[in-house]
């Protein structure tokens, strides 16, 4: 289903910060960049499964807390020379509220 699900207010995610989202068994990491863009990735690093929600947001990627891989927020792809990919979820911000499609 492509329905937009309300998650939280934009303000509840810190700038350059992350939040964990749970939906049933799915663990999702929400990211807010310096420029207030919002992204969502599966909360699972393509390297060894580290929680990306614990990483550091720099520009448009997140640096994983476990072994410092850089994962692109827009495409879920690991930056070269590392290789790997994690699923992305569509998100939007509407009147200060964050929505996601699962």
């Amino acid at each position: 289903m492509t329905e937009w699900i309300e998650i939280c207010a934009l303000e509840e995610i810190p700038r350059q910060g992350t939040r964990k989202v749970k939906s049933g068994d799915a663990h999702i990491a929400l990211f807010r960049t310096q420029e207030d863009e919002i992204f969502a990735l599966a909360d699972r690093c393509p390297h060894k499964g580290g929680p990306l929600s614990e990483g550091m947001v720099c520009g448009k990627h997140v640096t994983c807390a476990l072994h410092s891989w850089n994962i692109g927020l827009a495409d879920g792809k690991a930056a070269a020379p590392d290789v790997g990919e994690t699923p992305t979820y569509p998100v939007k911000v509407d009147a200060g509220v964050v929505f996601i499609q699962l």
Partner: protein
Amino acid sequence: MQKMKLVMVGNGMAGVRTLEELLKLAPGLYDITVFGAEPHGNYNRIMLSPVLAGEQTIQDIMLNDVDWYKENGITLHLNRKVVKIDRRARKVYSEDGTATDYDRLILATGSTPFILPVPGNDLAGVVGFRDIHDVDAMIAASGHYRHAVVIGGGLLGLEAANGLKLRGMDVTVVHIADWLLERQLDQTAAKLLQKNLEEKGLKFLLRKQTAALLPATQDGGEKRVGSIKFSDGSEIPADLVVMAVGIRPNAALAESAGIHCNRGIVVNDTMQTYDPRIYAIGECVSHRGIAYGLVAPLFEMAKVCANHLAEMGIGRYTGSLTSTKLKVTGIDLFSAGNFSGGDKTEDILLSDPVAGVYKRLVIEDNKLVGAVLYGDTVDGAWYFQLLREGRDISDIRDHLMFGQSRVGDVGHQGQHKAAAMSDDMEVCGCNGVCKGTIVKAIKEKGLFTLDDVKKHTKAASSCGSCTGLVEQILTSTLGGDYSPAPAVKPMCGCTDHTHEEVRAVIRKQKLLSIPETMRFLEWRTPDGCASCRPALNYYLISTWPHEAKNDPQSRFINERAHANIQKDGTYSVVPRMWGGVTTAADLRRIADVADKYQVPMIRVTGGQRIDLFGIRKEDLPGVWADLDMPSGHAYGKALRTVKTCVGSEFCRFGTQNSTQMGIDLEQAFYKMWAPHKVKLAVSGCPRNCAEAAIKDVGVIGVDSGWEIYVGGNGGIKTEVAEFLVKVKTAEEVLEYSGAFLQLYREEARYLDRTVHWLQRVGLDYVRKRVLDDEAGRKALYARLMYAVQGEPDPWRECTTEGEARREFEVLEA
């Protein structure tokens, strides 16, 4: 919009490297066209020597084949020399008359061998040593002729001579100076080298000036060289003459277009010529009056040039220190820096003519300024590193000559000779990388630098103790010395500023936040990276306590969540136990928490406290509230533990109350953030049960007071702490150790342990600041007390509702 047109003249190592860097930074910004006078793709010119010697083939040394250009959408014209630049019309003309437009032009024309202006220098059989064509000519000659003469006893000449000898020719090296490699070696080392080469069958004629090359007695066809005649009238047979008397930058093309040249094409620090649309790079340029003839500086230039072409406009090339190696198998020779000596320099010498080893280290102001190594060059990379860093060597001076292994910096199994390692031996103990993996990555991925190897293999990217080994592997795999690390190392890829510069600016300009600092220092990335942000955050809060803004998003997750992340994403919690002392009530609460949250493992740490493992992040605030104990900071760049022994209260040997001293120290300092973790220990007598000798600050009780030791480390590389001072009272222990820690907090680089910082600044410096200067010591201590005063306990902050709590809450969807 139409893409800009980038044209490059010269398809050599410096030019293609620039394109590679450019494609990484801004793929698709330009339509790129490359002209090369040679009929080949880009190959590793420095490996022509092993090719001549028959140790490698042309195939082995190709760096970018024709397909690489195709894959990157680059138009490649091989075998086409550019003969004219029309700067007004912005066109270059090649030999066949075709014109090509450019918006930006790179001149990377390299250099050509200097051919002595003597009669007969145009005879057949007279060659330079520069490209594949020359090597082919030499190999062909070695099959038909006997006598080879190499003019020039420099690096290039000796490598040519060695190759021709291995190809079976009878080789004489003619040199004008008093000894070989007079610019790289002193006379003693040169004599050893000459002796070794003579043993290999080479002949030498020193102090000889060539007067003419004479043709062989004619047997029809082309006129070929037959002998060489010297200014003293003597003559020797020569069927092949290799001129290796120096190189001349190829600047004629630029000069004819009216671009300012002074021997080389003159460029500024951004690699631009006097025509700002035209960049020049490589051996053809003259930068601050220097024309470089080695690959390492050219690669640094390439990086800068690419950055400007990519319109990022940051980065300057400010010149390079270079080191040399001779690539003749079986001969180990290394030299770097200034080794001719002078009034103010001292020499450390080791000379063992029987074993064929000669080493000379030149020292000025307690710093290494030059090194000549012959026969044993294992430590070349290490000396070069010391030289570039300008590190104070007084503490290691006694061992300096015996190399890095004597100073303790070796791989995990004690190896210090990469060459002696087999492919399956582990080099990097942290990331489990074997020698074979590194060699393979270097060969297959075309890696040139330590940074490349770190990125691709992860070797040397954690604790760094195997860096020396990795550098050796790099050198032995590539055959040459590329190590291009600049003299001063920037903080990270986001800036050109060093840690020290950034700290100074934060203080001077009173910068109070990360964005402000990045703006002021013109950071290259919009909001930094995971390595500079935590460092900046620390510099700000340590320089301006209570004023600068702490940024939780610029801290590693451990400091954000105030607990240690484990590999499965759960956390471990270590509450404070002052000086390792606990009570029944505390233990009971810990037990209750363990039951309530079903803690899977409870262990006693190496730092005398209790660690609760496997706690879910959401549960952390609850755990902390129920524990009702202060944070142990076991997760932070902060004061970890103060380990204590029993001491005089109970121990029959005890001379001082070490437990109380430990508790006092811990309570005084536990809220300080630091460049790295800090561990203290206090023992009550010299039996030292608390192992104070391997702590950042170790205090040992003696009958008449306390001894303070600093800079110990029990981690990856064990370091024994050095004696700082002996004091009488507990108050003095607090003041002296506090002042030491504050100096470290104010001046060390982020992620330096005390030992690393001490090695850089020297213990003498610390003595001056902490012991000799009483007012300074008291001021340091006062600043530390001010910094920790009123700092909240991070756990308590998160147990109450509010923004800090959010970190631990999970949203539902």
